[in-house]
C-alpha cells in the first residue's frame, strides 16, 4: 500500500530504507549446527528532510545495528538504503566517502568514542583533513567556531578528553559530527550514558542545533520519554523487526501493537497521584538464536491467537501514516 506521502505526491524522502537486513551466522553453543541471527530483518522506513525519526526498542532489538548498517559501518546482508535516491549499499567507496560527509554519526559512550591521546582541537579537525577542507588556519577557525556552537569555549581546544565531564564530551561528539555540515545525523543513544540534568542540556542543545542548521536526525534510544520528546515520527523495533511506526502523537494516543502498548505502560511516571494499570510482560526477550514461528512477539503476547503462532504478520497501514505489524491491529 502506498504511504500517505506518496498518495499526496509529497516530497522525496531524504533517506529511504527498503527491506534492510543484517544476518549473522553463528555456531550454536555446544552444537555443530549453524544458526542465523537476524539482527535486523527486512526493515523499511523513510526519513524526510528536517524531521527527527525516533527508533526505539529494548537491548538486542537491532536498533543500533540498523543505525550502523545505514552508514555501512556494518555491511548489510540485503536491502537498500537510498540517500537522495542513490543506494548507499551499492556505492563504490570513493562515492560513499563523499556521501558520508552528509551523513554523520554521534555515538553513545562519550568516554570510549573520543581518542584519549588527541586534543579536542585535533579531534574536531580530523574530519576536515580527511575530506580535504580548508587550510590549517581555516580548520582551526572552524573548530573554534564549532566549540562555541555546542556551548563550549575556545579554551577547550587544547584540552584532552579526560579533562572534560561526560556532558562536555558528548558536546564534542556532536561538534565532531556537525563540523562537516551534514544533512542527516544518526544519533545512537546519545544521552543514555548521561545524568538526567546533563541529558536535558544535551537534548535542548540538539533541538537548537536542528533548528539552526536544518538538520535531520535519526535518533536511536531506549528511553521512551526522551524519544517522545525529540521525535516527529517513531519506529518501534522488536527482535530485528519494525513492529510499529507512526507520528509521535498518534503512537502515544493509540499504540496499536501489543509490544508498543507494553513498552509504553512500563515507563514509570514521576507523579505519585497517577496510579496506572501496568501491563507486565512475562519472561525476557528471547535469544535471537531461537527462531520463532509466526509473529516474533507471540510467546510473550497477552493477546496471541492461533494465527499469530503460524503466520508472521506483515507491516500494514492501519490508520493514515500509522503502520503496525500485527494480525490483531
Amino acid at each position, binding site marked *: 500500500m502506498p504511504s500517505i506521502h506518496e498518495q499526496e505526491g509529497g516530497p522525496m524522502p531524504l533517506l529511504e530504507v527498503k527491506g534492510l537486513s543484517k544476518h549473522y551466522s553463528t555456531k550454536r553453543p555446544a552444537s555443530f549446527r549453524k544458526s542465523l541471527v537476524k539482527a535486523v530483518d527486512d526493515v523499511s522506513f523513510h526519513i524526510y528532510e528536517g524531521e527527527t525519526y525516533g527508533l526505539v526498542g529494548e537491548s538486542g532489538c537491532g536498533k543500533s545495528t540498523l543505525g550502523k548498517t545505514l552508514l555501512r559501518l556494518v555491511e548489510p546482508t540485503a536491502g537498500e538504503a537510498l540517500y537522495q535516491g542513490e543506494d548507499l549499499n551499492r556505492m563504490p567507496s570513493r562515492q560513499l566517502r563523499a556521501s558520508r560527509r552528509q551523513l554523520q554519526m554521534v555515538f553513545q559512550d562519550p568516554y570510549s568514542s573520543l581518542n584519549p591521546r588527541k586534543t579536542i582541537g585535533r579531534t574536531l579537525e580530523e574530519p576536515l583533513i580527511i575530506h580535504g577542507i580548508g587550510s590549517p588556519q581555516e580548520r582551526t577557525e572552524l573548530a573554534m567556531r564549532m566549540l562555541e556552537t555546542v556551548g563550549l569555549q575556545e579554551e577547550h581546544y587544547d584540552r584532552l578528553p579526560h579533562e572534560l565531564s561526560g556532558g562536555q564530551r558528548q558536546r564534542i561528539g556532536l561538534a565532531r559530527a556537525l563540523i562537516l555540515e551534514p544533512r542527516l545525523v544518526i544519533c545512537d543513544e546519545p544521552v543514555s550514558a548521561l545524568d538526567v540534568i546533563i541529558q536535558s542540556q544535551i537534548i535542548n542543545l540538539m533541538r537548537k542545533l536542528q533548528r539552526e542548521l536544518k538538520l535531520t536526525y535519526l535518533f536511536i534510544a531506549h528511553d521512551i520519554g*526522551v524519544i517522545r*520528546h525529540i521525535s516527529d515520527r517513531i519506529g518501534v523495533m522488536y527482535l530485528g523487526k519494525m513492529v510499529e511506526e507512526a507520528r509521535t502523537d498518534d503512537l502515544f494516543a493509540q499504540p496499536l501493537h501489543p509490544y508498543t502498548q507494553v513498552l509504553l505502560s512500563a515507563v514509570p*511516571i*514521576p507523579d*505519585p*497521584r497517577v496510579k496506572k494499570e501496568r501491563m507486565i510482560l512475562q519472561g525476557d526477550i528471547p535469544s535471537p538464536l531461537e527462531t520463532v514461528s509466526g509473529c516474533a512477539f507471540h510467546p510473550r503476547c497477552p493477546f496471541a491467537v492461533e494465527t499469530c503462532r503460524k503466520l508472521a504478520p506483515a507491516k500494514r497501514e492501519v490508520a493514515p501514516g500509522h503502520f503496525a505489524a500485527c494480525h490483531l491491529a
Partner: protein
Amino acid sequence: MPEELLLEVKALRTYFHTARGKLAAVDGVSFDVKRGEIVGVVGESGCGKSVTAQSVLRLLDEKHDVSYEGEIRFAGSNLLELKQRQMREIRGNEIAMIFQDPLSSLNPVYTIGEQIIEAIMLHQKIRRKEAVRKAIELLRLTGIPSPEQRVWEYPHQLSGGMRQRVMIAIALACEPQLLIADEPTTALDVTIQAQMMELITELNRKLAMSVLLITHDLGVVAETCQRVVVMYLGQVVEMADVASLFARPLHPYTIGLMGAIPRMDSDRTQDLQAIEGSVPSLLNVPSGCRFAPRCAYADEQCRQHMPELKRDAASGTMVRCWHAGTLAEAFEATEAAIATETSEAAERAEEKGGVQHAIYP
C-alpha cells in the same frame, strides 16, 4: 508498630583519604527508615547516594581509604562502633544489599544454587539438603521459572533480569529486615525494570521488609517509595513523603531534577528545563549553599552562608534552602499555567482538526 524506626542515620560523614586531602563524600547526612517502609535516595552521580548506602553496611576499606563520623543506629546498636566480626553477622543476615550490575556481582564459576546456599549456610545452622530446598523456594519466590533446573545453572546462562532475580534471592536468603537496593534496575530494560520493581514492592508487602532504594529515576521513586531523600554533593537538600515532594517540591535542585525529565504528558514543543553546569568536584566545594553556583535564584546570602535543613511549616518537608517558601509558590504557579495552556492547546488543535505538522505537506 508502624512508626518504629529500623534504621536511623545521624549526621553521617564519610571521608575519603586521597592524595589531595580528606574529602567528605557524605557530609552530615541524617535520615531514617521505618519498619516496612520503602525510602528512596535520589540524586545525580557524585551526590553521595551510593556512598551513603555502602556506609550503612561499612563496605568501604576502613584500613586505608575511609573514615566515618556520626551514628548509624540499626535495631538499637550503632553500626559504626561494631567490630568487623559483629558487622559480618549483620551483613547479609539482617541488612542485605543488591547492586546495579548483577553480572559482576555474581561469581561466574559457581552455580547460582551454590551461591544462594552459601548465603543461607553462612548465617543459619541447617543441613545442606535443607538449604538446597530453601534455595529453590527462594528462586520460586522471585519468579524464576522451573527453579529446580535453574538452581544448577551458571550466571552466564541467565538473562540480565534473571540474574537480578538471583541477586534478590540471595539477598532474601536470611530474611533481612532491611534491603538496600543500589540502582537495582539501571542496567535493565524498561519492561524488565517494571517486573523487578513489582517484585521488590511485593516482597516489601509480603515480608514487611524495609527497603532503602538508591536510584536516579524519579519515576521509579514516585511509584514505589513512601518517602524520599534528595541529595546534592554529599548533603541532603530535601526530604519529604512522596506525595508532598512531587506536589510541592521546595528545593530548586529538586525542581530542576523534575523539570529535566521528558515526561509522557509534557508539551513537546517546549525545551526541557535544564539546570546549567554540572556537579562540582569534591575538591572545590562551593562556599555557602553548595547548589548556589548553578541555581537561578541564588543571591548574596546563598553564596555566603550555608542554609540549614529546616522543616517547611506548610508541608512538613525538610529542605535546605534560604528561599524555599517563595520558590514553591512560583513552581505551583507555573505548573498551573502549563496545565491550562496544554488543555487550551488541545482544544485549539481539536477545532483545527488534529495537530498540524509543519514539515508534512
